């Protein structure tokens, strides 16, 4: 990519994503093409990071392990739903992912947890997300008993309007009261340590990055 085009892209993305300055945006664009680069050689022109490449970033850099959650995070980044995270989706996604306000993060997390995208986190979705969160006890008649109970506990705590499912309003009220519930159904934001490491590494050396 030539320097002029890069400069233009950087400027427009900096305007769109308010949490990064121009230098940081530049670094992230650099990183993006670095990651896509390998793929490009094989396939020619590529619209962006595909699901697997993106998941490996989440896994390696941010220590995420839950496949389902990682898929959902990918869907959260891939706004146009074309199966690829484009460069603008990458920068804007990371803006929320790393630096988002509580409001932005709540919106993002809710989208991640709303598996079928119907605007509600249903009991079934909750169960689905929590099903591996407890050690199984094969001795019990119903090995899922613990998880079912946990789902009930969560709903009791968060379902303000008692309709058996969580709307965004329910979720938002619960999180505002108890911020620990932001990632109630699984870690979908970077933990502070890996976030710090990521930022330190990516926003490190201006010369090195601009060479890309």
């Amino acid at each position, binding site marked *: 990519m030539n320097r002029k085009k890069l400069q233009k892209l950087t400027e427009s993305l900096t305007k769109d994503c308010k949490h990064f300055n121009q230098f940081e945006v530049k670094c992230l664009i650099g990183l993006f093409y670095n990651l896509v680069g390998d793929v490009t050689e094989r396939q020619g022109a590529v619209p962006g990071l595909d699901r697997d490449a993106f998941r490996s970033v989440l896994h390696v850099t941010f220590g995420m392990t839950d496949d389902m959650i990682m898929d959902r995070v990918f869907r959260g980044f891939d706004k146009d739903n074309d199966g690829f995270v484009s460069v603008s989706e990458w920068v804007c996604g990371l803006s929320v992912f790393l630096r988002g306000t509580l409001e932005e993060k709540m919106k993002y997390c809710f989208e991640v947890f709303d598996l079928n995208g119907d605007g509600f986190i249903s009991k079934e979705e909750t169960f689905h997300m929590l099903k591996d969160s407890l050690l199984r006890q094969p001795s019990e008649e119903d090995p899922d008993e613990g998880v079912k109970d*946990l789902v009930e506990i969560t709903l009791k705590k968060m379902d303000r309007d008692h309709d058996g499912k969580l709307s965004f309003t329910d979720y938002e009220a619960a999180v505002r009261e108890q911020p*620990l519930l932001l990632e109630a159904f699984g870690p979908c934001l970077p933990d502070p340590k890996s976030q710090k490491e990521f930022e330190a590494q990516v926003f490190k050396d201006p010369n090195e990055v601009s060479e890309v």
Partner: protein
Amino acid sequence: MGVALTRSAQWTAAGRGTRNLETTPLNEAILKEIITFVESFLYKHPQEANYAFAEPLEWKTELEPAAFGSGYAVSETTVTSEEADKNGQPLLFLSVPQIKIRSFGQLSRLLFFAKNTKLKEAQACIEANRNPIAKILGLDYNIINEINEDSALLTILDKITRDNDPESETKVKIALLLKQLDLHLLNHSLKHISLEIRLNPGTVKNDIELLKRFSGKGEQTVLESIDYTSDYEFSNGCRAPPWRQIQGEICYVLVKPHDAEILCVTCSKEGVFLNGGKTDDEGEINYERKGEIYKDLVTLLKEKSAVFSENMSKQEVRFSEEQQKEKEQLNEVPKEEEAATLRKASDVSHRSMLEKNQINRGKNLMTKRLEPSLNWKTTVDAKVKHLLRDNLEEKHGGRLEKPRPSVLPGRPQLIRKSIEKAEEVISESSSESEEDEEPPDHRQEANADLPSEYWQIQKLVKYLKGGNQTATVIALCSMKDFNLAQETCQLAIRDVGGLEVLINLLETDDVKCKIGSLKILKEISHNPQIRRNIVDLGGLPIMVNILDSPHKSLKCLAAETIANVAKFRRARQAVRRHGGITKLVALLDCGQNSTEPAYSSLYETRDVEVARCGALALWSCSKSYANKEAIRKAGGIPLLARLLKTSHENMLIPVVGTLQECASEENYRAAIKAERIIEDLVKNLNSGNEQLQEHCAMAIYQCAEDEETRDLVRLHGGLQPLASLLNNTDNKERLAAVTGAIWKCSISKENVIKFREYKAIETLVGLLTDQPEEVLVNVVGALGECCQEHENRVVVRKCGGIQPLVNLLVGINQALLVNVTKAVGACAVEPESMMIIDRLDGVRLLWSLLKNPHPDVKASAAWALCPCIQNAKNNDKLRRHLAEAISRCCMWGRNRVAFGEYKAVAPLVRYLKSSDTNVHRATAQALYQLSENADNCITMHENGAVKLLLDMVGSPDEALQEAAAGCISNIRRLALATEKARYS
């Protein structure tokens, strides 16, 4: 304790003769209970503590004579107590290593001296005295006991009503107390057995099967192998031969750990232990126990094999889960067994009702204690308490972390001495002693009706243990929704093992789990029992480490929790030892950035908040002397001074609270002056917050011993707010602090003038009635200072202050009496007031205080009598009494000199001109006493005493004759000595 000792305690089986107590958890628990009983005996039953045993309890002690404090005559190899029975036999006699003790008081003190070896001493004592009750009460009581336990008490009571002997009354009380202890021990051990130790074939089998699954070759396994010694399993699940099953033994296993030789282990109902191993021939097992008893196989192996312990911790979760679940299936059977045991013990249990009530009462007290008790009240209380306890000084002396030099300048000579003593006793200032008596744990009883919260919390703790991060956070948030201020919930969390898990979570890497856990710990640590449990589980060092975390909200939560936990000495010590004070002081440094971005992350919070939490924790910690020092050394004072400049009450209260607490130290008082803190304290006296006003006044009270500080308070305009705060009398805590500050400030004359301007003296007089003693002590102290001035004495008299002051002379609070006598003495300087005092019988009251057991009260009363002597004109009866009083006082201390200094001698000589022989006699006797001091002789001579006395020598009254002659002789002798000195 007799029955409990013979039936419940586990004695070694090794033949007859001196048998030893085995080291089992049960025995340890019994010994601990006995220790608690004996230790508290001295305080709970002071009278019975002096009762001399029929026979001494005698054993070999490991205590060195040097360990004994005052109250004992100590030589290199012997110790004899000063306390003796009515025949003069010492109640404690130690001739290394044999010790003989004959009272509970002495036993209690011995345990105190023994400190860390308490348990050993108690064990040695019990082992050497197999029937302590017989020795304590004499044989007859015990025989009755043995014959018919139930009617024993009746028999004894019956005996008392017949022979009305005060000693046997004490005996019966002790017998009753011992009986209660016995029942308590029995109950306790039953609980202990049923709850903890009992293993059964099922649980043992499960453990072994499970361990087998994790054993084999390879580095990850926990053991190389584990096998039974016998393949045959009896129908009851045991594999031990029948004759060993009688001993409670279940089976034997050979265990080969990775890093040790083969272990041969006995699993019995009482626990698991190493036996003598397989003998070479025929594979017989040597059944003798060779080591400690552990509660289960895993615990034993963890102790014996490092590799096991390490690999086990990796497998732990899986293992304990499985163990738990299998236990649940098997629990039915043993419960029935226990029920049977309990039924057998039912005749014991109905008698334990009394004791249960006591425990409940204890519980109520405990909840009461939950209320905040940080402030002045405890300070004042403690001081008063300690004055009262002065004669017990030696006992408390041992508790000092470090004796402090006393620094209280500017007080009248006579009083200062007493304060010095009192201050020594209060090593750990203010509320330190308050919570230090560690209350016994009250676990919720296993079979009691448990509230539904208990089961819900138990479930949540299960999810905490077995859940991943997501489940853990949900469980934590849900737990947070319980009413954690309620004791039921607090104790439920502990009783289902939640504390351990919560503390473990603090050591994980997950910030969210740490935050959630601390949020709960912060709430439940308001409970004193929970605080102790947290300390016992090693929670403090972990929280201290969290203070270094990069996440501000974590720091805050950790500091707030520490603030709650560090309410007793052991905790405060732990905070310091793990470097917590330095870290907390570092938190104070955060509060300087005034411009901060609004925080968005869960882990962030404002810097001011961090500093506030740090101050909160330091406030709790600052109740220990060593911590005060540590805070100072870590540079805390300038940081606190800087935080004082803020205007947030939330911040100011802990900051001033800490300063107020630390101002007991001279170092701090100097620093408070140097850092110009007085100005801010004065400023905050004007704040709207009563608690803040209280702490500021309290700090001024502590610091205003210093003259310059008193001036600073005035210069910064602090006297007016103090005076106006006097008008609000509803908040007694604040009133006590304010009157205290006024008292100390009024030591300076300039301040008194200001107070008079502000009409504070009138207000103070108004506070002489209907106020708690803490307030009265200060009010009277302040009036005593003010009345050094003539003008103020008139004010006090005119607003009717004399009468309430004289009324207070009949009190019993010694600190108050010291101040009251001083104030009355100051008023008596004025003849008109003197007349009122005399009319109200005040002189007699002062005089009767000369008999007060407390030396400071005595001294102060004597001082107060001096002006009375000068002003007692033309009232012969009064003069006579005063003269008598003086001659009595002279026998004590340096009063002879003091009377001279306070110019009592000259007026006394004039009493000789009275026409009443009674006055003559008393005066001559007083002069005789005073003439032992050379200066007084000179004064007498100058005032023409010799001529007057010479006339008295010729009196028909023999006592008068004798006193007059004695006095002349003293004066003469002095004159001769002077002459001799002049001419030689």
